């Protein structure tokens, strides 16, 4: 039995080292997204998270910090807020769920020091497992203990493999030499976390709809923890359901349930799908996201709200 235990431990050690080595080799040799389904490390990926985090690390104090998904980083334009005398930083990331919002806030709230935090809330992300957003953060934020915590919370083989690869990339200094282009196809990165899409219009064809089967209770738990954290710091909080196309909005049949849950938190909650009258084919560039014309209208309405 002692031989079994001794060899078992030795093999575990050997396997750990071997697994890490193979992950690094596999990730370096295999082309992105082919033959490595459970290793998805892409620095400077879609959404400009790398540039946003670099700015966040050096950011001065701002008035408003926005957290949320692509609806946030493509929906809150800091230039419009600046013109109204409001300093805003956008810390949204692709498919950011309440879990990632919480981790990012814990990491950057002190340095950004916003008086008001806008939490962009999107029902589908309360049903998400958070894998996609975690992969984005591993590749585009400095890997540290909070990243490990996040990976452990999500606990998915994809995030673990990507984390292992990310740690090694961090150790060999691959992040330091990387520079992300501000312009990527028709996306332009604007200082303070915004991504502006070249003006285009929604053609009415939906790639997806709200096919949410059920909410994930864990995400509500993280959301409550975030609210608790902000309350403890006496930060003002606004919950905003940013505009999406009516076509998408109407396909979601759990909206009443979601509204009721948001109402329970006793924090100001605004559903801009009900407050604004926007046209799918004029104010959006796809089923989810406002184009710059829509952003102008939406942001003016938010400014009005903030000034009140």
């Amino acid at each position, binding site marked *: *039995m002692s*031989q*079994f235990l001794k*060899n078992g431990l030795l*093999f575990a050690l*050997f*396997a750990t080292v*071997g*697994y890490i080595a*193979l*992950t690094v080799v*596999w990730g370096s040799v295999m082309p992105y997204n*082919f*033959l*490595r*389904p*459970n*290793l998805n490390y892409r620095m400077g990926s879609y959404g400009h998270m790398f540039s946003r985090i670099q700015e966040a690390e050096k950011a001065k104090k701002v008035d408003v910090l926005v957290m949320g998904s692509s609806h946030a980083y493509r929906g809150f334009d800091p230039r419009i807020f600046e013109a109204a005398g409001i300093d805003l930083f956008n810390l949204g990331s692709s498919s950011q769920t309440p879990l990632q919002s919480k981790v990012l806030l814990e990491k950057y709230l002190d340095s950004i020091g916003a008086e008001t935090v806008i939490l962009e809330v999107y029902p589908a992300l309360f049903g998400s*497992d958070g*894998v996609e957003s975690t992969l984005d953060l591993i590749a585009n934020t400095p890997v540290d203990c909070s990243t490990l915590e996040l990976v452990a919370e999500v606990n*998915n*083989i*994809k995030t*673990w*493999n990507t984390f292992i690869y990310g740690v090694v990339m961090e150790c060999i200094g691959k992040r330091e030499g990387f520079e992300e282009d501000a312009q990527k196809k028709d996306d332009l990165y604007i200082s303070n976390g915004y991504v502006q899409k070249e003006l285009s219009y929604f053609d009415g064809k939906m790639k997806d709809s709200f096919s949410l089967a059920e909410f994930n209770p864990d995400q509500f738990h993280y959301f409550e923890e975030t609210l608790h954290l902000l309350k403890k710091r006496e930060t003002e909080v606004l919950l905003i359901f940013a505009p999406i196309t009516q076509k998408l909005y109407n396909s979601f049949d759990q909206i009443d349930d979601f509204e009721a849950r948001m109402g329970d938190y006793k924090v100001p909650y605004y559903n801009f799908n009900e407050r604004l009258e926007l046209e799918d084919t004029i104010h959006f560039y796809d089923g989810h996201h406002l184009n710059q014309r829509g952003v102008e209208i939406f942001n003016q309405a938010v400014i009005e709200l903030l000034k009140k």
Partner: protein
Amino acid sequence: MLFNSIDFAIFLPIVFVIYWFVLQGRLRLQNLLIVVASYVFYGWWDPRFLALIVFSTVVDYFIGLSMAQSQRAGLRKLLLWVSLGVNLGLLGFFKYYNFFLENFQAAFSFLGYEMSASSLQVVLPVGISFYTFQTLSYSIDIYRGKLEPRRDFIAFSAFVSFFPQLVAGPIERASNLLPQFQYPRSFNYSLAVDGLRQILWGLFKKVVIADNCAIIANYMFAHSAEMEGSGLLLGAIFFAFQIYGDFSGYSDIAIGVARLFGFQLMRNFAFPYFSRDIAEFWRRWHISLSTWFRDYLYIPLGGSRGGTGMKVRNTFIIFVVSGFWHGANWTFIIWGLLNALYFLPLLLSENNRRHIEIVARDRKWPTIRESALMLNTFILTVLAWIFFRADSLSHALEYLSGIFSRSFFRWPDFELIESMATSSLLLVFFLIVEWFGRKGQYGLDRIGSSWPRAYRWGFYVFVIFLIGMYLPSKTTPFIYFQF
């Protein structure tokens, strides 16, 4: 509890440590631990199912004792019928009630009578077909005088509920497994290491091969109406590997786990896709079920002792019953019938025992003839699997007619090309390992046995790495749990 779940990854080491470190040398307590662990393992799905297994255990325990004590042949027969009635009754109710009801209704309706009876929402208890057959073998063997009944209720309960093979086999014979609960067990290093190796290979087969092939197979069967014939054939081939990886993977894990606790279970798969004819295939596929039917149905029916007519009749009965055992659906019955038809020419020409040893036993590679025979057998099984996998008979026929259409000569156009490329490369690796490991009990059994330890371990780490890299995000239940 699924073998490929985090729950089981925590459960197994806990039971292992208590079993060997706390209870070593205390046989009754070790057996009791197995019973408790097995009930936890089984109750993880639904604690209500435990009532059935406890009921089945108690009934067969007392029937076994009463049969052995009775000198009257009539009473012994009656007791056997009670055991058969209880076990098959439970199986029949939970598995076949709705099937028979629907078919009676359809038959009456065809004759012009409307029969009003509503089907029940019966939840099929996991693994009922497996443990029912295992306890039946106990009662039948005692009736035949081949086995002495066990007085130790804990040992008997452990035999019925032994968690590694409880829900999907191998279906053990009482004469093999039960005595292993009676004698003290001491830790055997080689057996445990071999068990871990077999678990590793089983896990690879399940989560890498079966679950990745399932993506393609599920897509093809779901979109069969709009798919080219070539794509449909690919879907059926991927299903063939899915079901093999899934079921033999489960068996490998079950046998490996049992070895960790000092038990030897019977072999359930012996590289069936390297078979040169369908008779060999059936000696290598789901061996514990095939031999169960041979011992408890085929031989009592007369086996091969009678004339050609009786042999043919018995063969058809075995295959049809085997198909029906898999599920209450006509697709399984046709699958069984089709295999009987494949078997028939071999039986009539008395060539059904031509290939006993594994192919190319003393050579590295097969001859061209052997390769052609293996390919032929594989294609036959793939065509039969279509009935097994299809939702209904009409779906299976539509699928088959799609394959045998002109569109067979067009390149399949579907969105999973990348997944298919990945799965195909994984299959190549899998088949290479299985081929070079075919003389062992399972793929990894002998691979690297003569290599230096670092190389051998390096190979195992590579297999672990492939599991980590190709494990699907969501765990998928084993196909055979539904049976």
